[in-house]
């Protein structure tokens, strides 16, 4: 039986976390199919067919799938379980919203946020903000899984040539409707897939001061993140939050500025390849995970960093 990956997309493009999820599905050892459910999403189906290692793409197109409401998508996905032993989605707000609903419809215990595949029924997942790793075995006939994208190298977006099949859409459950959204507009790379991330914490003192980080980010092509403390203080929106209850990132370079390093924040970034910490408190826990630590006043160090990068 093949594994089915639920693609995350915006009806125009596939979100990158889908590629990491395909990689996790391939690690199961069987064939991989991808479901694209959306509205006017044929282009997404074609893109999914090009992902390396994908054997089949199922497209379900209907107006009530346009905003990925879990009430409408869950019965569709659960209905496909008879042909698929594993259902996987990225552990993004899309997957976290949808998959438990699918799992409950199938009477299956979901395995959340896996970081490794040990076998077709055995997976590793972080618990307690990543302070422990649990190896769990599922006895359910259908495994419902969300995948931590930073733990799997993405499948190549090109190179595949899967067959695309249109499947019947289910009904509108009539339980919920989309009202609107406010998406953060940014020219910068997306936080969870950026190669470099620069994050600010409570030490930034205000939202205005994040402009200093933005100038450095512009020089590096980096995304901007924040600690929960900075979000709670209202400096930046919640979708900047890196940590146990925010986003999990693992860039090549993570620069933590004015962040003390609570375990909840470390949970979101400690798998970064290189970590830099800039903090005036040399006892700050962030230095215990930093490859390069600079004990300095960030209001001097960050402008100096911007200047040095310009050289």
């Amino acid at each position, binding site marked *: 039986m093949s594994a089915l990956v639920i693609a995350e997309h915006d009806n125009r493009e596939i979100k990158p976390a889908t590629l990491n999820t395909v990689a996790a599905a391939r690690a199961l050892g069987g064939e991989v199919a991808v479901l694209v459910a959306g509205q006017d999403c044929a282009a997404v189906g074609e893109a999914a067919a090009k992902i390396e290692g994908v054997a089949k793409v199922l497209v379900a197109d209907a107006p009530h799938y346009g905003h990925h409401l879990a009430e409408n998508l869950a019965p569709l996905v659960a209905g496909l379980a008879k042909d698929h032993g594993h259902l996987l989605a990225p552990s993004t707000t*899309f997957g976290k919203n949808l*998959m438990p609903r699918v799992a409950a419809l199938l009477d299956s*215990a979901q395995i959340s946020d896996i970081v490794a595949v040990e076998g077709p029924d055995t997976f590793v997942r972080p618990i307690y903000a990543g302070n422990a790793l649990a190896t*769990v075995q599922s006895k359910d006939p259908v495994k419902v899984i969300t995948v931590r994208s930073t733990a799997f190298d993405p499948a190549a977006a090109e190179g595949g040539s899967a067959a695309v099949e249109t499947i019947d859409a289910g009904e509108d459950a009539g339980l919920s409707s989309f009202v609107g959204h406010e998406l953060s507009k940014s020219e910068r790379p997306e936080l969870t897939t950026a190669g470099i991330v620069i994050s600010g914490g409570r030490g930034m003192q205000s939202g205005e001061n994040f402009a200093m980080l933005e100038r450095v980010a512009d020089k590096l092509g980096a995304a901007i993140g924040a600690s929960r403390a900075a979000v709670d203080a209202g400096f930046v929106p919640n979708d900047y939050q890196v940590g146990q209850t925010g986003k999990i990132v693992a860039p090549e370079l993570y620069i933590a500025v004015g962040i003390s390093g609570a375990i909840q924040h470390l949970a979101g970034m400690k798998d970064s390849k290189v970590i830099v910490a800039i903090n005036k408190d*040399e006892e700050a826990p962030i230095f215990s995970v930093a490859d*390069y630590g600079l004990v300095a006043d960030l209001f001097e160090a960050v402008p100096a960093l911007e200047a040095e990068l310009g050289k």
Partner: protein
Amino acid sequence: MKVFVPVKRVIDFNVKVRVKADGSGVETANVKMSMNPFDEIAVEEAVRMKEAGTAEEIVAISMGVQQCQETIRTALAMGADSGIHVLTDAELQPLAVAKLLKALVERDKPDLVILGKQAIDDDANQTGQMLAALLGWSQGTFASKIALEDGKAVVTREIDGGLETVSLKMPAVVSVDLRLNEPRYASLPNIMKAKKKPIEQLSPEDLGVDATPRLVTLKVAEPPKRGGGVKVADVAELVDKLRNEAKVIP
């Protein structure tokens, strides 16, 4: 309107969790336990609904060992009216919790179930969505704003790219995110009053639910340690190291 608020007893968020030497789990003996922080936000929101006149009755529910009653008392001190404790010493996984909650919802008929988006122990982020599925109800996950109007719950959700607003047919399940509100501290008089509020106790069997865990934990291990690195003297040295040693910037 009757509101259910499920609350979980978890290791306090300030405790540094230690993995047991035999790899069977994490050390919970003599460790400070508290209400899951997200569930506190859910209790606070329910109490504010009652203060605003949109909710009449708040029932706090917890499941697990006898000490879960302390967690229920915390919710009662914050303003919940009564509690339900499903007593069991066995491990409860999210699917089982959702089934137990479903049984209680069908018995007591609340209009809204509001709970934390995830518990900070198992980090599963499943229970609310599973409960909504089992009941065939709408779900508003990761809420940062909840407005009740004309039999609908209009929920603003924290999503990866920003915010999304959905309109939910009631009854509904809403899971809450951090920015929804700031939970209050219970006052001493309210803590005293909470001791007199009723808590019903029953077992999974009383509710006719098989709560046996479905996932088997084979082992629990420490994550690989990340060694601390070096301190650099100034920004020039930092940039030099990043360029020439780590080679992560051009």
